[in-house]
């Protein structure tokens, strides 16, 4: 990977209470590419995005965006840095008191001095790109999950950011919305030349658009490479995840006492 680096994560350690989520994660996100961060549910992929966005503070290690250490920045500078970032939330996270148009216009209104006519043009262009120009007057409560996510994507790229973070963009989408979103993420990346980090466990869709992939499990980077190299990776974790095998190092069952003993135990003993 010889591309210039946009985001660098160095020796990241993070714990929630007594649970260690990350035990020394190192990542390099190349400029202008789509990098996927994948892994089984509960491995802390969303937590990693929050650490990159500066919403959580690591116990040890650094997150550098364009050379700036996110967690060393004062609050005001951090908010300034975030203006160069867009984030697509799993739930869409649209502002429920604003309609679709105003949701997309929000970043433009608070961060620019553009006249209303220009804001209108930009918002309509962004909504046209996600196919929802006609839905501009709807309130978030009137949108389907897929539409909400597309509006959220239009809002995330409203300011033409350098970096967009996608948090599980394909979860809970019907096949049509999923296909639309996959194409949109790719198109937005190509058209705007922005750097994208996609956190997901939808293998097929993510691998179809990613330039580079990191697989995280057990608090560490298990493997990384292009989608083609991961497909033939021999590592047990990677093989189980990429090929969706039920047996492997990641157990299906949450740790529990023996099933037979549990069923026959007197009431209350294992409860």
């Amino acid at each position, binding site marked *: 990977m010889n591309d210039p680096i946009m985001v660098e994560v160095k020796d990241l350690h993070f714990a929630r209470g007594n649970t260690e989520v990350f035990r020394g994660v190192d990542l390099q996100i190349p400029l202008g590419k789509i990098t996927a961060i994948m892994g089984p549910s509960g491995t802390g992929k969303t937590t990693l995005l929050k650490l990159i966005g500066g919403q959580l503070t690591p116990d040890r290690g650094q997150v550098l965006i364009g050379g700036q250490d996110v967690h060393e920045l004062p609050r005001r500078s951090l908010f300034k840095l975030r*203006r160069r970032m867009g984030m697509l939330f799993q739930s869409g996270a649209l*502002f429920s008191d604003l309609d679709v148009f105003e949701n997309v216009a929000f970043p433009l209104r608070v961060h620019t001095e553009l006249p209303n006519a220009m804001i209108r043009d930009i918002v309509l262009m962004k909504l046209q790109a996600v196919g929802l120009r006609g839905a501009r007057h709807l309130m978030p409560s009137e949108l389907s999950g897929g539409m909400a996510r597309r509006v959220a994507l239009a809002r995330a790229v409203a300011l033409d950011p350098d970096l967009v973070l996608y948090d599980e963009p394909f979860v809970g989408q019907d096949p049509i919305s999923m296909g639309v979103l996959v194409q949109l993420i790719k198109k937005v990346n190509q058209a705007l030349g922005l750097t994208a980090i996609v956190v997901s466990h939808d293998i097929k869709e993510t691998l179809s658009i990613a330039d580079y992939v990191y697989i995280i499990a057990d608090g560490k980077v298990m493997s990384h490479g292009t989608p083609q190299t991961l497909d033939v990776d021999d590592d047990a974790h990677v093989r189980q995840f990429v090929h969706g095998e039920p047996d492997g190092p990641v157990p299906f069952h949450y740790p529990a006492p023996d099933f037979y003993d549990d069923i026959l135990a007197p009431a209350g003993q294992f409860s």
Partner: protein
Amino acid sequence: MIDRIAALGRGTLDVLMAIGRAGLFLVQSVFCLPSREGFHLWLRQMHFVGVMSVAIVLVSGLFIGMVLALQGYTILVGFGADEALGQMVALSLVRELAPVVAALLFAGRAGSALTAEIGLMKATEQLTSMEMIGVDPLRRIVAPRLWAGFVSLPILTVIFAVVGIWGGYLVGVDWLGVYDGSYWSNMQDSVDFVGDVLNGMVKSLVFGLVVTWIAVFQGYDLVPTSEGISRATTRTVVYASLAVLGLDFVLTALMFGDLG
């Protein structure tokens, strides 16, 4: 035994940490530069927090004034002092009942709504998405609500007192037959602007700050689940009511404590 001491220590640390977080939260929300957009957001909250509380304050103020007059009359008439009814109604309302009852009503109507609104914004990641857009939710969401509560409660208190005095007039003068000249003139003679009215206003300013602070902090600091929102809303009403009653004693002692 050791476990109990450890639990006590943990509990104390949790409380101290929450107080620290709440203090930082207040400082970061209140001390920000005013802007034109901030003024518009504040106006919108004045409507939501203040104007929409007027109806409950009007009705409560009217009934409390009427009850005060009725109760006061039955006692005063026994001493032949029913002409002091206006004085009794006005002083009770201006010094105590208007600031305290308006604050309690405000905590129940506006405080719980603020907690639920901010809590739901947190649960649906709207606050997080705002942060990621580069907008500080403390400035955009919390500060306008805090200032709106601080400004609107004293106004609601004035409305409460005025309507209460009018309610007292309806019962005392129109119904029970107290001479209206003495109702008003006794009130005018005995109610001191600085000692009574301003002290009442100071109380309502303090209550406005404390109730709104508790409400927005509980919303911002809650666990973002449906149970978390329900608990935080309850905590807002309970903590705010207790804080109002406790602070009322402290402020009354400071303002009127040297009389004896």
